[in-house]
């Protein structure tokens, strides 16, 4: 390992100012600081610094996503197996999921990091580690059968329009991963909505007549609809589809790759809250917001409106709510920055999600839109929180 450091030091002058490859210095620095913590010392201000840096913060978020990823790999195989009636064993399911999901990651990281490197190079900036997390998130929130070229375009849109034009990580207004998903869903609605996109291999089966692994047809009674769609018709429809609360909690149901298992998401949430990387206030208030609107709907429900009868707590385990609350709404850059603002922001994310689910049957997944909308309003929330606090302070001083 020390040899590596020596080698990097040896080739460094080539990439520094005046060197032959100096135009690549952002790229070089990115690799250098990825391989080892550079020996930079403090010059102004404090002489010592905390060991925590952004790379560490980002790697913790990536770690927190690992349970969801592993579950997603298995679940992709499991859903395929169930749809085609294959009687697969555990490792066959994992292998199928692995083969389906690796290409998503390749596209996400190659396209995203490529753009990051190029734009850092053009502006002479350093490459930011923010994309490590975004690139990890994107494959987990898209349907497994998403065409790779669509994903590539969506990633490019998210990175360029969502982040780079604002100046990179720390400057963006919207969560880039969610922007990627929103782009997919609004640009290719015919391909991205409906019931056939959520189960691995189904798209290919419908177009070519063959599934990935074998020539089987889909099993009788298979619909491909996600539980969220059933829930839109009320709790009876969920029961009819044989989906219990426990299934939704464990996550062996259809949906985007990483969003189905609440257990896996909770494991990540524990890590994020314990390390202080993500705000527990946002997570908790989002849950409170969802329950508040959910219970309100329950109270107003009649037999004519079965979708309002869905017990409020189902919203916590359905669709992307848990994943969005833990990993997306808490993005420190795009969420509210003040402590009071975090409570308001989180509450509105949860409340809006359930509102969209209940009153917009055409498009059930409210999480994405709720978070993007609240991202937009987060600076406004902060503004009023800060103004209120300054006003309080001014009054206090006047009295004293």
């Amino acid at each position: 390992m020390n040899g590596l450091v020596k080698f990097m030091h040896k080739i460094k002058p080539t990439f520094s100012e005046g060197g032959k490859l100096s135009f690549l210095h952002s790229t070089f620095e990115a690799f250098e600081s990825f391989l080892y913590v550079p020996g930079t010392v403090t010059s102004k201000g404090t002489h010592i610094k905390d060991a925590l840096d952004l790379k560490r913060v980002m790697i913790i978020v990536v770690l927190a996503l690992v349970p969801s990823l592993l579950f997603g790999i298995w679940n992709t195989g499991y859903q395929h197996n169930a749809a085609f009636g294959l009687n697969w064993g555990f490792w066959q399911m994992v292998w199928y999921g692995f083969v389906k999901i690796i290409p998503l990651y390749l596209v996400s990281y190659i396209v995203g990091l490529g753009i990051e490197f190029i734009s850092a190079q053009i502006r002479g900036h350093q490459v930011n580690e923010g994309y490590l997390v975004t690139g990890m998130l994107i494959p987990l929130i898209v349907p497994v059968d998403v065409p790779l070229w669509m994903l590539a375009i969506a990633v490019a849109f998210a990175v360029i329009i969502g982040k780079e034009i604002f100046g990179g990580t720390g400057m963006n207004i919207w969560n880039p991963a969610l922007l990627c998903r929103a782009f997919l869903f609004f640009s290719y609605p015919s391909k991205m909505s409906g019931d056939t996109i959520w189960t691995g291999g189904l798209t290919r089966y419908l177009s070519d007549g063959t599934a990935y692994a074998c020539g089987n047809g889909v099993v009788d009674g298979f619909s491909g609809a996600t539980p969220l769609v059933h829930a839109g018709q009320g709790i009876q429809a969920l029961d009819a589809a044989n989906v219990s609360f426990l299934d939704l909690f464990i996550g062996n149901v259809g949906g985007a790759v990483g969003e189905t298992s609440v257990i896996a998401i909770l494991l990540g949430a524990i890590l994020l809250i314990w390390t202080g990387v993500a705000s527990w206030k946002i997570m908790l208030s989002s849950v409170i917001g969802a329950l508040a609107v959910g219970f309100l709907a329950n109270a107003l429900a009649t037999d004519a409106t079965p979708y309002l009868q869905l017990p409020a707590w189902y919203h916590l385990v359905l669709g992307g709510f848990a994943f969005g609350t833990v990993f997306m709404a808490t993005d420190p850059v795009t969420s509210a920055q003040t402590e009071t603002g975090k409570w308001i922001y989180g509450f509105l994310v949860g409340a809006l999600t359930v509102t969209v689910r209940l009153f917009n049957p055409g498009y059930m997944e409210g999480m994405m839109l709720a978070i993007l909308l609240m991202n937009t309003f987060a600076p406004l929330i902060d503004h009023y929180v800060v103004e209120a606090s300054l006003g309080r302070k001014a009054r206090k001083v006047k009295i004293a």
Partner: protein
Amino acid sequence: MSNIIELKRGLNIPIAGSAALKAKKVVIPDVVAVKPTDFRGLVPRLLVREGDTVLAGSPVFADKVSPEILFTSPVSGTVSEIVRGEKRKLLEIRIKADKEQKYEDFGAVKVASLDGEKIKAALLKSGLWPAIIQRPYGIVARPSATPKAIFISAFSTAPLAANPEFALRDEFENIQTGINALAKLTRGGVHVSFSSSNYSGTPFHKLENITPHIFRGKHPAGNVGVQISHISPISKGDVVWTVSLAMTAAIGKLFNTGRYDMSRLVAVTGPKAIDPSYVKGIAGMPMKDLTEFFDDKDGETRVISGDVLTGTNVGKDGFLGFFDDQVTLIKEGTECEVLGWARPFRTKQFSASKAYFSWLSPNKTYEMDTNTHGEPRAFVLSSVYSKVLPMDIYPVYLLKACLAGDIDKMEKFGIYEVIEEDLALCEFVCPSKIGIQGILSDGIDLMMKEMA
């Protein structure tokens, strides 16, 4: 008795090398330096030339804006060198000390017999006026101003700071005299803050003619700026003065003995200090006289006049600052650490966050070095800063206002209440490695320029 003011937010940095409570040696300096750079925003007017002889207390330079503010020599001797930097900026006046010290006699007087104007005149003439710092901005006090109140912190929570009960053990009478003198300069009284941990034990709680306050909490609870914001926040138009306890003792000495006496016990601390302990020294003394403390065998050592958060890197050939009663020696962290950020365990590193495992060993001290542990980035994590700042301000908003040079917003977000040392911990914990004190410094400079 006043109530204890409890500060929940803060951080004590567990750096190794605190000074044992013993005075190891007496430094008799050969050359000392008076440094205009110890004072913020000061434009000096030189009053001596190379070869001039001075007494301890003779003026060396004055403030160009208020020429009545004199800066005097801590020793008697001959001006040996005047060091200038870029654009002929005056950096140091070096004075070769005599074997036998001779003092300018300002005359011992009873403070009770003097009024405010006479005390002011005595402080200005002797060179002790610059010991009084004015807030906002942390500049040398303007003699024309009348402060709302004067604040003194009787304890320090800074990393490895000198212990005032030990360093000022013989100075009780002088501190009392100093407080009596300062009390005549303001109508708001002298506010002295104590630590709850040793309030009844410290001899200083017997001080009279003060308004006492008690604070409990981690660093920066001992910073006078933090204390002011809890006692009586500074708003626009307010002027308050602050004096350190050691400088109060020096002021007392002036009236008790008639001498400008800058000698003090200096704590030599830090992971690279051999047998960290105290030395009897003087303001402006050379670091060369401390070489037996330097543990230099594995690479470079950084010599800091002051503490690791706010001190100045003066180098081995540098001199102790006017206000400093501490020298910190730490290693230059020039080593690269392969995949350091990804290692689950880095037992030799301290982090205030739980992203590493240093929370498992709360009593461990660390041999910290000057490595930045990462590269500069934009603000990303917004919640880390307020956890170490027990003040009612929004640090990120203030810093962004400073970066944007927006005077109105800087004012709104509390630029009058803070100086660099108050936000030093924010800079320490910042995962984006942003130079927070530097940004604030530029902001304060801009305020002074625009509001003058």
